[in-house]
């Protein structure tokens, strides 16, 4: 018999049963994967933000030197905070700047309000007036942002907050909100309930990928406390 030319139609006709079996298997796998992802999504306690948080940029003005000249003094050059083209750093506000990660991560804070200490690789900002809270802590994490899923990042945020407790509330009872992830950063606001002699607590958490290292920063914001200086330092963390 002469060999028939294999057309697409003939191919489909010949292998209909096998094709059906393969499609059925693939559909089944797809349904299972979809179902699990759906359940995960439903169980996620994250409240997605409605608006993206904007990082405020503070312009630093160079003070004018009062001089008597015949010609009017030139306008001072306004520089954007951060690293400049010549390698210098312009702080986001008038304060003390400490560099981490070999100058890739800059922490600026008000030395009148806060004091910085370091212990075992953990950098801590505390009030100059004393007390263990409010506070801000920073430490390196031995990983990188691109290796961590959204779920893992949420878990880390809750886990770092839980590390402050003698007896921590359950992860499911800690509410994350305003979660935001970019290529090099992750941010979340956390609300923890009162638990085991600890009051309810709010906190901000940030992960920053800078200079090949991953660092977290967490600021504890107890209700009724003056947290402005802490929030200023946290919000103005800069990296390159």
């Amino acid at each position, binding site marked *: 018999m002469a060999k028939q030319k294999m057309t697409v139609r003939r191919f489909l006709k*010949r292998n209909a049963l096998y094709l059906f079996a*393969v499609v059925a298997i693939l559909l089944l*796998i797809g349904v299972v994967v979809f179902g699990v992802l759906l359940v995960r999504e439903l169980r996620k306690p994250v409240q997605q933000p409605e608006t993206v948080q904007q990082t405020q940029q503070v312009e630093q003005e160079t003070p004018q030197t009062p001089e008597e000249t015949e010609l009017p003094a030139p306008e001072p050059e306004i520089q954007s905070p951060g690293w400049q083209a010549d390698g210098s750093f312009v702080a986001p506000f008038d304060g003390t700047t400490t560099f981490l990660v070999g100058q890739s991560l800059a922490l600026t804070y008000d030395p009148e309000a806060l004091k910085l200490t370091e212990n075992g690789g953990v950098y801590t900002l505390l009030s100059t007036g004393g007390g263990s809270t409010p506070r801000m802590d920073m430490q390196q994490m031995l990983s990188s942002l691109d290796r961590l899923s959204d779920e893992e990042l949420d878990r*880390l945020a809750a886990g770092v907050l839980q*590390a402050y*407790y003698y*007896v921590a509330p359950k992860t499911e009872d800690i509410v994350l909100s305003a979660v935001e992830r970019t290529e090099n950063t992750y941010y979340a606001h956390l609300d923890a309930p009162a638990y*085991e*002699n600890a009051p309810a607590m709010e906190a901000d958490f940030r992960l920053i990928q800078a200079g090949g290292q991953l660092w977290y920063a967490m600021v*504890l914001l107890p209700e009724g406390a003056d947290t402005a200086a802490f929030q200023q330092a946290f919000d103005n963390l800069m990296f390159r």
Partner: protein
Amino acid sequence: MQKRSNFKWLLRAALCLAVCLICAFSASAKGTAQTDSLLAKVQLPKVLGDGKFQIGDVEFNHLLIPRYVIEQYDDSDYAVYPGETDDHVTEVKRYLFSNDNFPKNEYVTYTQVRPPKADGESREWIETYFDEHLATLLRTLYLFCGLEDKEPCIDELTRYLLDCLPQASLEMRWDIEAVYKYTLVKEGNWGTVGRDGTLDHLYYFAQTDPDWAREQFDFYKNDPDFPNGVTIQDRGCGCACASMVFSAYHMVEITPRITANYADAGSWHVSYGLPNEYFQGIARYYYSFEKERYGTELLGPKILSKDEVNMETLADQIGNKGYLAIIHVKSGAFTSQEHYMVLADYREIDGKGYFLVADPYMQSSRYGSRDQLLAVEGSTNDGLIYATADLLYRDCKSLILFEQDRNDFPLYCRTSKPESGWLN
């Protein structure tokens, strides 16, 4: 041929795709291990909470286990609950009973395990049974770990917490043990566990218990008058009563084997009764037996002759003040010769007063008459019986009275601060 090769090609493609999907899917499941390893490196001070909790007026310190470690065990492959029998129960009981693991703790007692005397001997059912004492111990452990809402069960988390115990300080382990024993006393569940798993609600030891009934007193071994020797079952009622009383005041199981050894060591010859001075001597010996661990002390007893005994006063002392007494009886309702028994409680039943008698010779069928005796309702322990004051006084020869409240178990904290308890 063509069809078969097409099919094989299609099947291989589908399988490859399926494998890729499964790998991608399971990759995210490894995230928990990754985040846990990162959280293990977080070095932050404890500034939220104080790591303490209250029991009555006493403040205790928590055993600290990080929340992410606890949540690793959220999905356990097994869970065994009180009232069930299981190999997991056996493993836990043997682990807690072992002197190798806990030489200075009594988390699980002799009667909860009934260990065989020699290798190769069969083990008892009670070892597999999840009794109420074990449930109370686990509740106590959960309390110390900040998991007071957890129902007692043997699951992966519980096994992990138990594995953490040996590395806790001795003071912390004693705190856990003391709160556990205190809770048993407050709930009225203290004491020995019967072979059927039921609680005796007091420390009960029988001279007829097969574990030691056949063991002989040394000082009769070469006595020609007793060619077969004298066993604990024959003459060990005084030793068994001493065991019951001392166990109650020290809240640890002191078996008749131990008190019989004391009789041998001190040459307190057990004929048809020990000399009453035996009880004073052994009380002195065990005066501060558990003082270091629990803070308990056992004061010496008062020995009263029959003429000095007032049954009405005794009823008040035992029923209301928590005293214990060992009554020495002569031939009568309970024995054909002489016998010792413990008066463990006093209560009114249907308007009539009865002493709760713990008779170490567990065979109530041998009582000549049931007159003025009442069975203990709800108890499977054949060694317990209610008896009226008149009957007991009639047969009484003397009384060894321990003027201490058996329910007075001291509660205080031995640790100075919360402890990190997890296996890092």
